[in-house]
C-alpha cells in the first residue's frame, strides 16, 4: 500500500506539473527513493493516482535504468560498461567485482548485501573505469581502489551494528 506521504508527494507533483500523467517519472523516482525499489503493487496503485493504465506506467518504469522493478540488496553497485570505461579495461574491473561478490549482473548476493547492475554510460568518462555505489561516483577503479571501497563498506557496517 502507498503511504499517505507517498500519495501526498504524487499529488504535489501532479499539481506542480499541471497534468496527472506528466508526473509519471517523478512518481517512479519518488517511490524508488522511498522504498529502494518499485513493486508491482506500488506501481499499480501509483498508476491509479496518476489516472493511467498500469501497463503504461510499467513501460515508463522499464525505460528508467535507475528504477528497480525487483527487490535489490542493501547496496547497489552500477558498473559502467560503456565505451570509455570499456576501452580502459572495465572488463577486468567487472570480473573483479563479480569474483568478490560471487554474483553476476542482475543478481543479489545471498546475504542480501549487494546487487550488481550494468550501467550504460554514467557520464564519469574522465574517471574511467567507473561505477556508482548507492548513487555515489567512484572512478579510476583498479584492484586497489576496489579493496579500499569494500573495506570502507565493511567498516560502516561495523559502525552500524555498534549503535
Amino acid at each position, binding site marked *: 500500500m502507498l503511504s499517505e506521504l507517498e500519495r501526498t508527494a504524487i499529488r504535489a507533483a501532479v499539481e506542480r506539473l499541471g497534468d496527472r500523467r506528466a508526473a*509519471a*517519472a517523478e512518481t517512479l523516482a519518488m517511490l524508488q527513493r522511498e522504498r529502494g525499489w518499485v513493486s508491482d503493487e506500488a506501481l499499480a496503485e501509483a498508476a491509479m493516482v496518476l489516472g493511467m493504465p498500469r501497463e503504461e506506467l510499467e513501460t515508463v518504469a522499464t525505460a528508467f*535504468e535507475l528504477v528497480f522493478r525487483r527487490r535489490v540488496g542493501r547496496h547497489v553497485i552500477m558498473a559502467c560498461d*560503456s565505451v570509455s570505461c570499456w576501452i580502459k579495461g572495465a572488463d577486468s574491473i567487472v570480473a573483479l567485482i563479480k569474483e568478490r561478490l560471487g554474483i553476476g549482473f542482475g543478481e543479489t548476493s545471498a546475504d542480501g548485501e549487494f546487487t550488481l547492475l550494468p550501467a550504460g*554510460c554514467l*557520464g564519469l568518462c574522465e574517471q574511467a573505469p567507473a561505477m556508482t555505489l548507492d548513487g555515489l561516483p567512484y572512478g579510476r577503479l583498479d584492484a586497489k581502489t576496489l579493496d579500499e571501497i569494500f573495506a570502507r563498506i565493511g567498516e560502516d557496517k561495523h559502525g552500524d551494528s555498534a549503535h
Partner: protein
Amino acid sequence: MAYKNYILVCGGTGCESSKSDELFKALHQQAEAQGVKNDVQIVKTGCFGFCEKGPIVKVLPQESFYVEVKPEDAKEIVAEQVVKGREVKRLLYRKGEKADSNVKIEDIEFYQKQFRVVLRNCGVINPENIDEYIAREGYTGLERALFKMKPDDIVNELKVSGLRGRGGAGFPTWLKWDLTKKAPGDVKYVVCNADEGDPGAYMNRSTIEGDPHSLIEAMIICGYTIGARQGYIYIRAEYPLAIERLKIAIRQAKEYGLLGTNILGSGFDFDLEIRLGAGAFVCGEETALLRSLEGNRGMPVPKPPFPAISGLWKKPTVINNVETYVNISVIMSKGAQWYAKIGTEKSRGTKTFALTGKIQNSGLVEVPMGTTLREIIFDIGGGIRGGKKFKGVQTGGPSGGIITAESLDQPISYESLTALGSMMGSGGMIIMDEDDCVVDIAKFYMAFCVDESCGKCAPCRIGTNQMHAILDKISKGQGTEDDLAKLEKIGKAMTKASLCMLGGSAANPTLSTLRHFREEYLEHIRDHKCRAGKCKDLVVYEIDAAKCIGCGLCARKCPVPCIAGEKKQPHVIDQARCIKCGECYKACKFGAVIKK
C-alpha cells in the same frame, strides 16, 4: 573585510569521486583550527576540465595551480599559503620535469590552445552563488533582451551570430526559434535537452555543474523571444550533482526576480521546472524526449511535424541542447558580432569536447571551431598514453565514425567531420591506440545500439541485431568475406529506412571502420587473427616457462584468478577460466606472458 586568499576547489562530479568533497571539508577544518578562518574564503567551483590531474585546487591571488590534491594536503596548504604566504611547491603542476617552476594556468599546455566561452565560468565561480554569476556579466544578456530588444531583434542577433545546435545535428538555432515564434498558438514551451546519453560524453553535465545560471538565463531569453511562459529542463537522473546545482540556481533566480511573474519589472512571466530523464539513449532524441516529458515511454515519432510546430502537448516548442543555450547567454551579453568572429565560416563559435580513452590528459576542453584534431588530441590532450601509437578517434559516439591519423590535420567543423564519414555529435572524443581492435569497437557500438533501440521501427530493431550477429561471428574468427558485403548492405538499409537517427546512424561505426580498416576485418576472417589481441576468441595468453621466474605478480593481478604456481616456479594459466583481459600480459616484467 577582504580575504587574503581564495581557495578554489574543483567540485565537479569527477573530482568529487576522487575525494574533493573531503578535501573541501578538510580545508575548512584546517582554516578554523589554524585560526585563519577570516583570512581565507574556500569555494567549491565547477570543473576545471583538467580531470586527468584532479582534484584540482587553485589558490588566489598567487594563482597557484595544485593538482592531485588529497584531503591530507589541506593542513599544509593552509599552514603554508594562508598563514605564511608561501606556495606548496610539491603540489604545483609540473611542466615537464622541472620541479620548481611555478606554473600558472596560462602556461599549461592543456589550457593554451583552449578558448573558453561555454566554460568561461567553470572552475572560476561558485556555481551555488548567483552573485558570482552576476559579477561576471551574468543576466546582462537577459536585461538587454527584455529592455532593449524585440523578439525579432533577438532572432536576428542569433542569425548574425551563426550559432548552430550543439546537440549533434547542427541545425541553425535562429531558424528553430523563428519557426516556433511564428507558429500559431498562445501556449508554447521552451525545453532543454540535458539527457546526454551519448556514451563518452559529459560536457553538458560539467557545464551545468559549473555554471547553471548560464543555462537558465538563455532559457528565459528563449521564452521571451518565442512567447512561452514555461520551460522544462530534461536532465538524466544519473546526474545528481548537476540536478542539485540547478535546483539551487532556480531558487536563487526566483528570489532575485529573474524567474516567475513580471521578470525584472518587464511584465514578462516565465517559470522553469526540472524534469528527470530516464537515462535511456533514445530519450535524448527530441521527439522521444517530448513524449517522455508528457509521461509516456520515450519513443520517437515521425517528423514532420517538427517540435517547432507541434511539440510538447502538441504545442509549438523550442528544444535545444544545454551547450546551445549556454552559448546564447554569451552571445546576448557580448553581442553577435563578437561571437561571429570565432570559428569558421559555416561553423561559428567554439565547441566543447570530452577527451577520454587512451589519451594522456583526459578531460573537458573547449576550442574554437576550426582547430585541428591534432591540436586537440596532441597539444591539448598530450597525445597517447604510454607512448603507444594513435589508431583513431571516434567522434559522434555510436552515431559517428572513426577518424584516422591521415585526417588529424583537418580543422574541425560540422561539415568537415561529416565529410570524414563521422559527425560532430555532442562532443565525445574517444581516443584509441594500437591495442584497440576495430572489429571489437564496431561490435561494441552495435551492442550498444541493440540495447538502446526502442524497438518501434523494424529497420533499427532487426538491423542492429543482424549486424551485431555478423560482427560477433567475425570477432570469433568465423566470418566470411561475404559478411562484409552484408554488413554494408544492411547498414545502408538501416540508414535509409529507420524512423529516427538512432537507427539512421547506428551503422556508422561499422561502416567507417570497414572503410578505414578493411584489412583488419579480413585478417579476422582469413587468418583468424586479431592483431590488437582484443577479440577474445582469437587470442590466447600463455606463460613461457623458460622466462617465468615465478614472482607471482601476474597471479596477483589476475581478476579471475586463474593463474597458479609455486613461488619461484613457472606459473600456468588455466585456459578454461581465462577471461583474456590481458592484465597478466601488462603486468609481467620479464616478457614471460605471451599473447598468441
